[in-house]
Structures are given as structure tokens and as C-alpha cells.
């Protein structure tokens, strides 16, 4: 094979590769759009009036996740299933956002941490790599960390809205999450960087809880809640 032929062959490969990337980018853009819509719906829980509407907002968000599922379905058709990691960078960001949104919805509904299988079900994807388009464990964890900072914001705003019990529940939840993350041996990668931010969220929520308990506001909540 001559040099020119060889380079022709490689060039053909490279442009095919570029076409695939182009297709993926288009679908990812629509996914990002839907993710933003869901976020907008969920943002209203920070409004004082929004606390009563949590169930309806969650229902609306869940409807939008149907769109996400069809969009991810079309994303799956854009590239060979076994080359997931080759193009991973293209959807990594949006997938983490979607995990965050799914986890947030589930938290608002049940106040528990969404399990990975559940997120995968909401997004219409797999957990195990062998079965096709899957949810990488690092992306799942990153999404959960985004949720942690959203919850610290929610704790502050729920006090403003006069809901004094919620910060305590959030505090318990975040503490549990924190001890979970402590179990992981993270490398010096983006996930680790994000995890380093978790302690500030924990601190902020603890401050809110402190403020409440020093004023006796937490006590009535406590007697009303757990006791």
C-alpha cells in the first residue's frame, strides 16, 4: 500500500468519525434543551409558594422525562453501542445534569437517595455496560453531588418560607450522603473536585440547623417530627 493510499484510507475513517460526532452533537443539544426545561420547572420549589406545589411540579418534571427517554433513544442509534466511551465526552455533561434532575425529583417525592437503577429507569438507559447505553457510575455520583448543593439551597429557602422541619431532614440526608462519599477512594479527577465542594454544602446546612435550634425553632419541629 502506498503512502497516499494509506492516508486516503485514514482520511476516510476520520471523516466518518466526524459525521458521527456531528450527529451526536445535534441530539445532545435537544437533550440539553429538555434538561433546562425540567430544571426551570423544578426551580420553582425555591419560591415560597412552591413548597405546596412540590407534588405537581414533580409530576410535571416526570412528564418531561418522557421526552428525555425518546431523545436518548435516538442518541443510541447514532453510534455503535460498543463505542460508548469513544464519544462519552459529548453527553457526559448533560447526562450528569439529568441524573441530578432525576435524583432531585425523587428526593422531593420520597426524601430518599435515588438508586442508580432507578435513575437508569427514569432516563431509559441501562446500568450494566454490556447491555448498551448505560449510566457510568462516576456520572451518577457527579449528578448526586450536584443535587447536594441544590439541597443546601433548598434548606435556606425553606426556612425563609417558614418550613422549619425540612432543613433538619435535609441535614440528616446530606450527612448520610457525606459519609457515603467518604467510603470512596477518589482519584484526582473531576469527580474528586466536585466532591471537595460537598463539605461546604454540609457546612451550610449545619449552619441553618444551628440557627434554627438556637432559636428554639427546631425543637417544635423535632417534637412534631421524629419524636
Amino acid at each position, binding site marked *: *500500500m*502506498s*503512502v*497516499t493510499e*494509506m*492516508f*486516503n*484510507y*485514514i*482520511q476516510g*475513517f*476520520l*471523516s466518518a468519525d*466526524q459525521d458521527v460526532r456531528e450527529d451526536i452533537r445535534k441530539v445532545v443539544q435537544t437533550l440539553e434543551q429538555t434538561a433546562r426545561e425540567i430544571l426551570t420547572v423544578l426551580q420553582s420549589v425555591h419560591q415560597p409558594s412552591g413548597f405546596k406545589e412540590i407534588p405537581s411540579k414533580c409530576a410535571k418534571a416526570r412528564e418531561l422525562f418522557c421526552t428525555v427517554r425518546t431523545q436518548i433513544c435516538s442518541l443510541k442509534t447514532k453510534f455503535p453501542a*460498543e*463505542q*460508548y*466511551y*469513544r464519544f*462519552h465526552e459529548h453527553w457526559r455533561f448533560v447526562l450528569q445534569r439529568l441524573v441530578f434532575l432525576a435524583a432531585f425529583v425523587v428526593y422531593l417525592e420520597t426524601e*430518599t*437517595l435515588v*438508586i*442508580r437503577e432507578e435513575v437508569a429507569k427514569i432516563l431509559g438507559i441501562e446500568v450494566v*455496560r454490556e447491555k448498551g447505553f448505560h449510566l457510568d*457510575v*462516576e456520572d451518577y*455520583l457527579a449528578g448526586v453531588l450536584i443535587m447536594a448543593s441544590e439541597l443546601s439551597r433548598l434548606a435556606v429557602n425553606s426556612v425563609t418560607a417558614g418550613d422549619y422541619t425540612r432543613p433538619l431532614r435535609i441535614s*440528616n440526608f446530606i*450527612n*448520610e*450522603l*457525606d*459519609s*457515603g*462519599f467518604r*467510603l*470512596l*477512594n*477518589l*482519584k484526582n479527577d473531576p469527580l474528586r473536585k466536585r466532591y471537595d465542594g460537598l463539605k461546604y454544602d454540609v457546612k451550610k446546612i449545619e449552619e441553618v440547623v444551628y440557627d434554627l435550634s438556637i432559636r428554639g425553632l427546631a425543637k417544635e419541629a*423535632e417534637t412534631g417530627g421524629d419524636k
Partner: protein
Amino acid sequence: MNRREGEGCPRRNADAGQDRDASADPSSPVIAAFKVFQQELDTKHDKYERLVKISRDVTIESKRTIFLLHRVTSVPNAEDILNEADVKLDAVRQKIGQIAEELRGEDIFQFHRAFTAGIQEYVEAVSFLHYIRHRNLISLEEINASLVFMRTEPKGSAEALQPGGQVLTFQVTPSDYLLGVADLTGELMRMCISSVGNGDIDTPFQLSQFLRQIHDGFSYIGNTGPYEVSKKLHTLRQSLGKVEDACYALRVRGSEIPKHMLADVFSSRTTLLDPEEGVV
């Protein structure tokens, strides 16, 4: 311990203890889930580290092979050196076999970053050897064809049972191939200069022609390739310039200077050129 604290001041400490228990409770679903994640991440990181280690070995051995091949110009019988290089590269291939073994059942691109440097260096070494032997560019298929491994099963009988399942291949990606070839041009430039130093008049002209072909190929690909390619294109231009200058000098002065003095002319050239050349 919590209970004893609780006796002193019943209400408060009991609460605090409960909180702490909840956060470290090994039976809580969150902690249980994170234990699974811990294992999964550790397994992945371990594999990655192992691959990095193998890749470094591949890089070092390939580099040594390249140094060995540079001696070809200064020794009378090149064949011995080429055979020695073959033996070295076989050892490198065994290492790549280990990479293939690690990657079995995995997505090759998930760990690609761990071993891409080693593979590029291997491509450089193997294509350099191929050029010295055959004076043309090794193709991607030829490289991949030599990276087929028979799995060494601890028991000999297992091999006989499943002949199909024992074959392991490693596929060099086109972009790794391309980057390896780009590195090759730097070696060819060095070979050109040193062959001039040895009074070899033909090799520089062959090399300049070959380099020009590769340069044309890279220009054809342009910026459709990965980002690193365009970076290497710049270095490639420099190498080509040096080789073309050398040929020019040979053509112009070759008729004037007696052959035995050519070495002196170019040894002063090479010292001028060397510092510019990056680490290859």
C-alpha cells in the same frame, strides 16, 4: 459508648448519638450502595493503573529499539541490528498482549488514555524498522495483523478445547497510528542527518522523498484529524525542512567537496540542528 454518654444527660446526648449512628450506619441503604460504588471505582482505577504501567514499559522498550535502529547507519552489517530490533519488538508485542488481556470484555476507549502513549511509541518503532527494511510505510493493517495473541492458558488442555476463544487481538486506532507516523518523521530526519555524516549519499534523497509523501498525506488530512495531529504537523514541517536543506547542500556541494570531507561539513550542521529538535 453512646449509651454511657446518654446516662449523663439523657435527652440531648441520645439525640446526638442517634444522628451519628444514622450517618455511619452500615446497614443503611445509602452506605450499602456506596460500598458497591467503592468497589466498582477501585476495580476501575486499579485496571487503569495497571494499563499505565504496561504502557510505560512499552514506551521505554520502543524507545530503546529506536535508539538501536539509529545505529544501522554506522555499522557494516545492518542485518544483525535489524534482527535484534525484531527480538526487542517481539518483547514489546508481548506487553501489548498484556494490554489486550486487560481490555478483554472492556470498552477499549474507556481506558484509551492509559495506554495511547505506549501504542504511539510502538507504532513509531515498528514503522521505523519497517522503513529501514522495505523503504516504505507500514500500513495500519500490517501493524494490527502482528498484534494477534494466543492466550496462554495455565492448563494446556483448555487451549485445545476452545480454539476460537483463545485468540486475542489488539486494534491500533487510526489516530494512534497517525500520531505514531508523525513521530516517525522525526526519527527519519535524524537518520537522514546521521547518514549524511557517514558519507551515505543516497539515503538522504530517498528519505526526503518519503518524508515529502508523508507530509503531503498529513496536509491532505489537515484538521479533520484529532487535535494533536495539527500540532505534530508543525514539527513535521520542521523535520522536512531540515532534510530538504541537507539534500540541497549535498546537491550543491557534493560535486565540489571530496567525499571524505563531507562528514565534516555535516557534523557542524548537526550540532546546529540538534538543540532545536524536541524530545522524540
